[in-house]
Structure formats: C-alpha cells, structure tokens
C-alpha cells in the first residue's frame, strides 16, 4: 500500500512540511471561498461593502492630512487623494491580513479540535481573501489616475517587487499574529492596537520626509514604512524610498521565515491549548 503515515513527536522544530500545505490546497480554496461568502452573505449591498470601507478611510486620511494638516505630498506632484490612495496600497494588504488572521485560529477552533489538517491553512486562507482588499485599492488608484489624467512613471517596473514585499509583510504579520493569539490571548487586543498605531506610524497620507530627521531611524524601524514608500514611489514617482527601507525588507523576510517556524512550534500544541 502506497500510503504510510507515521505519527510521532516532532523532533525538530525546523521540519516544516510545507509540502503538506500544498497537498491540502483544496481545503485552502474551500476555506477562502467560505470566508468570502460569509463576509458578504445576507448584507443588502453585499460585495459593495468591500469598496466602501477602504474608500472612506482614504477620504478621511486625505482630508485630515491633506486638507487640515496640509502635510503636502513631498516631491510627488499629484493630488493628495491619489497620494493617499497610493500609500494605502502598500498598507491595506498588511492590515487586512493581520486583522483577519489574528483571530482566525481561535475562530476555527471547533475544526482544529476535531480534525487534522496543516493549521497554516487557516491564516493562509485569510491571506488569500485579503487579496480582494488589495485589488480594490489598486482599482481605485487606476480610476483616480484616469480621472486626474496622470500617467504612471517608469518606476512602475518596480511595483511587483514592492508589492511582493507588502504581501510577504502581510503574510509574516498574519502568521505571527495567528500563532501568538493562540498562545497568548492578549494578542486579541494587541493586534487591533498595533494596526491602529501602525496606520499613523506609517507614511500613508504623508511623506516620510515630513518626519523630523532625528526620528528617521526610529521611523524606519517600522518595516511597513519602507514598503509603503516603495509602493507609492513606483506608482506615482517622487522621492525614492530611503536606504533604510532596504534594511527593512531584509528584516521582513526574516520575520516571515521566523513566523513560519514559530507557527510550526505552536501548531503542535494548538489543539491542547485552545
């Protein structure tokens, strides 16, 4: 018989078995579909809600920073609303994944306690659902550029790289938070707090150059700062991301890999802890 399965205590926390996640890809799609359906089922305007939320946060941010605080758009010569939307583009995926994945395993605990599957599938399904949020912001940018008759610069060639960074950062954050929330329930409260603080500590609606020189290094300790600057720069041009940003990309990759390992070590005890 071809199938042989050996169950024994995992010796090393470095055996990841990511191939198994691939074997369970159908479950991953089904759970993603479920999340998507459930999110908009029974609402009167359904999928339109997916547009309304980001549009309102962009409008508010742009109004507060652009119209009231008048922080300007740095070297980029574009309307503030487009500037903010482009900034939002780098942030939105990260925030959607973190928000969704944080509680995801606790939310799925009935499943986790009753059946086996690679637990990584749960936060990953949230990460896939969050692509919708990213796509919507990208669509908003395209519409605004059409409206203001602005052409993207040749920097757009770098967009895939920076978007990839945004996605890796989102996955990293989501995986860490979902595992940490299982281990320490405190993270149920920490995650939203982190997102709220992060939203203002990240140059979404203002240029990084608006931050005083002495805080610059501190500012770039936030790995999302570089990502957001990079994504925006590749869409509408302006000041290229600070060299600090590239350090944060390396940091993001390490956080991502570390997250998978941490998740793996928590995964073994997940059903006992929940």
């Amino acid at each position, binding site marked *: 018989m071809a199938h042989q399965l050996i169950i024994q205590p995992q010796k090393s926390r470095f055996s990841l078995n990511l191939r198994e996640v691939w074997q369970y890809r159908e479950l991953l799609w089904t759970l993603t579909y479920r999340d998507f359906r459930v999110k908009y089922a029974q609402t009167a305007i359904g999928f339109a809600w997916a547009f309304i939320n980001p549009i309102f946060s962009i409008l508010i941010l742009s109004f507060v920073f652009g119209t009231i605080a008048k922080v300007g758009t740095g070297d980029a010569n574009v309307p503030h609303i487009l500037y903010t939307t482009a900034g939002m583009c780098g942030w939105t995926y990260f925030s959607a994944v973190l928000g969704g994945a944080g509680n995801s395993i606790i939310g799925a605990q009935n499943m986790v306690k*009753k059946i*086996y599957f690679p637990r990584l599938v749960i936060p990953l399904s949230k990460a896939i659902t969050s692509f919708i949020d990213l796509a919507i912001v990208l669509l908003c940018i395209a519409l605004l550029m059409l409206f203001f008759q602005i052409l993207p610069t040749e920097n757009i060639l770098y967009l895939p790289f920076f978007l990839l960074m945004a996605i890796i950062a989102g996955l990293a954050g989501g995986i860490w938070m979902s595992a940490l929330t299982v281990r320490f329930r405190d993270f149920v409260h920490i995650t939203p707090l982190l997102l709220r603080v992060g939203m203002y500590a990240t140059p979404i609606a203002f240029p990084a150059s608006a931050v005083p020189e002495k805080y610059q290094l501190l500012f770039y300790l936030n790995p999302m700062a570089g990502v957001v600057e990079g994504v925006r720069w590749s869409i509408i041009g302006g000041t290229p991301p600070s060299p600090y940003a590239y350090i944060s990309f390396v940091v993001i990759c390490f956080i991502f890999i570390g997250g998978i390992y941490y998740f793996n070590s928590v995964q073994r005890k997940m059903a006992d802890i929940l």
Partner: protein
Amino acid sequence: MSGFAIKVENVSKKFELGVIGTSTFYHTLWYYLDKLKGGGKKKVDEANEFLALQDINFEVKHGEVVGIIGKNGAGKSTLLKVLSRITEPTTGRITVNGRIASLLEVGTGFHPELSGRENIFLNGSILGMTRVEIKRKFDEIVDFSGVEKFLDTPVKRYSSGMYVRLAFAVAAHLEPEILVVDEVLSVGDMEFQAKCIGKMGEVAQSGRTVLFVSHNMPAVKNLCSRCILLSSGRIIQEGSTTDIIERYMNPSNTRNDKGINLDILEKGKGKDVVLKDCEIIREDNHTKVLIQGMNRDKNLKMIGVGIKIKSQEGVVLTSISPKLTNFIIKFSSDNFRCAFVLPELDSILSSGKYFLDIWFSVPRLQILNYYDNIKQFEIKGKDIYNTGIIHTQKTHGYLPIKTEFKVYSN
C-alpha cells in the same frame, strides 16, 4: 501489503495541568527572565503533569473492527486525538498503513450562513475528500440526507434533525481505508442512531479497518470483533468483545465476600457522604437494597439517595433517582441506614447478570458521591409458562412478562 493497518508503539501523552491554556504573555516573560537570571527553575513540577496515555501498544490488522472502551477519563478521546493527529504524542510512534480518516464529530466546519449545497463541499473537503470525489457522490449524499428540497437554504434555517442528517450523510460517504470514529456519532434521535450504527456495520463489512470508540455497549457488541479496554490511560486488557465488555462492566476482581467493589469504596473516600455497606436481600415477595452510609459534613442536613439497575451491557433498566422519587434522608447522626424495597426481582427481570449503582446527592443540585457497579447480582431464568422452556435474556429479552392468551371463536 504489510500485515497491519495501525501499529501503536509505546505511545504516551502528557498534559501539563494549569500551564497550557492559562499561560499569559506576562507569565512567560517572567519565566524566561527567571531563566536568564540563572535560576533555571523548572517551571512544571511533577505534580502538575498528567499522563493521559501511558505506554500504549497495540496493533490493528487490515479489515478488523476494533472497539476501544473505558470509562470517562480513561484516555479514549486522547488516544483518538493522537491517532487523528489532532494532538501530538509525547513519546512513542504510530504507523498507519493506508488512507486514514477520522470522524470525531459530524458536520465539522459547517457554516450556518452557507447553504446545504455549499456545506457539503465545505465539510467534504475538510474531511479530506477532493472536489471531484464530492461531485461524484453529491447526488448520493443528498439522497441519503433527504434534504434535497432545502439544498439552497442556509443551514441555520434547518431543523436540528435535518442538520445532523446532512452532516452525517457527508461523513457516511467518506471512503478511507481506515476509519477512526468517536461515539459522538451517536447524537440525534434513536432512529438516526440506528442509521449511524447500520452505516458503520456496512463500512465494517466492506472489509475496511475501523476503530470505534464508544460507551454504547450494544453497538460495540454488534460491530466489533475485538476490543481494547482502557483505564487511567493504560490498556487494561485486549481481547474478544464479549470478554472485554464483561471486564468493563465488572471492573474489579477485588470484591470482598459480600460482592462489594472495594476499589470503588476507596475512591469514594475523601468526599463527605460515603457508602459503608450495601446488601441486596431477596425475600419471598420483595427485594430489599439495604444501604449503610456515613456523613462527615456537619453542614449537610439531608441528602437524596438513588439507585440504578443496569444490564450486563450497561443498559440502564431503571434509575430510581431522588429527583424522581424524593427519597430523602434527614440526618440525626453521622451514620445512616436506608432501604429500597423493590418487587421480587425474579418476577421483573429475566436471566443474566445485573449491576447496581448507588449515589448520594443534594437533589437537583449536585451528586455527592456516585458508586458505579457497586453490586452485582444474578437472576436465574424461569419457566414462566410451564412449557419446559426457560425465559432467558439472550433469546427472549429483558422482561419476563407473563402474558395471557385468548382465542375468540366467532
């Protein structure tokens, strides 16, 4: 093909009481700070460890249907969870030859907002079926569940019966080579339970390997050829279903000459109301269950007393609970004596072994002490119709009711 489907070797599972699940960020931080300071103090002392499974070894051959039985807390569920890979064993190794699926509950992952159709696909893929497989069996599943009219209705609008039927229909069409099933399957009404057991029997007969965990002795007797008896995380005995069920119902060989299970008496100690002696006195036209006990709690003014008569398979034939009867003892001293006077048992029970449970409670509030299978007694078969044929439990059922028969001529 290797000779076994499942081979379990030296499997143990340790839980750390009060650590897992209650640990906060703050605690962990202090723990690591402590460690840094060079304390290296062990976080978990031995007393806080709990061995849910200890050194479990067994083998299941291909095509065998094996029952796992034991009292609550014996480690059945933990063993099942380890086998289903929901939780990891602390030590040991399990080898499984063949595709294994486990069913610890029906309807895992069902989402109330989604329609029956969507939930079939959802639940199916959670159980490990591929999309193609589900599509192929879709009509069969719908047919089996009998909810085709409501397929596009969200399952939250289903009656609980429909919900369970749909959930079981999906599970029943799972076709693994090895199936691990928990007794939670036996939810729902009697008819549904019978359907579940019937389906299980089909699975068993189709030559697949089944591991069945249950409290339902008649079902175990029906389905399983072999059983494993667990107690306190260890395998007590392994053998033919009849032997194991007998042992399970009659857990201790340390009965004294009065037939009282001393082990259980010991266990009762430490609680405030304890049983000291119990006797079944058979008289001509009635049976007396005489109970002597002691109360150590000065604040307790009265208790309720109940008894249960159970068949060898564990079927409760009657439960004379103080909730029902209001049989109450008001304490005047520490010791108390009481008796349940029943009709002569020979006239109401058919042949076989029976077991008696006794419990003390604060009626409607709390069970103070429960003595499971405290007494065993035997009833002989009777020739109630004077035909020379003895009414026995095995062939004629539990109730030796003497019936009259009349023939009317037109």
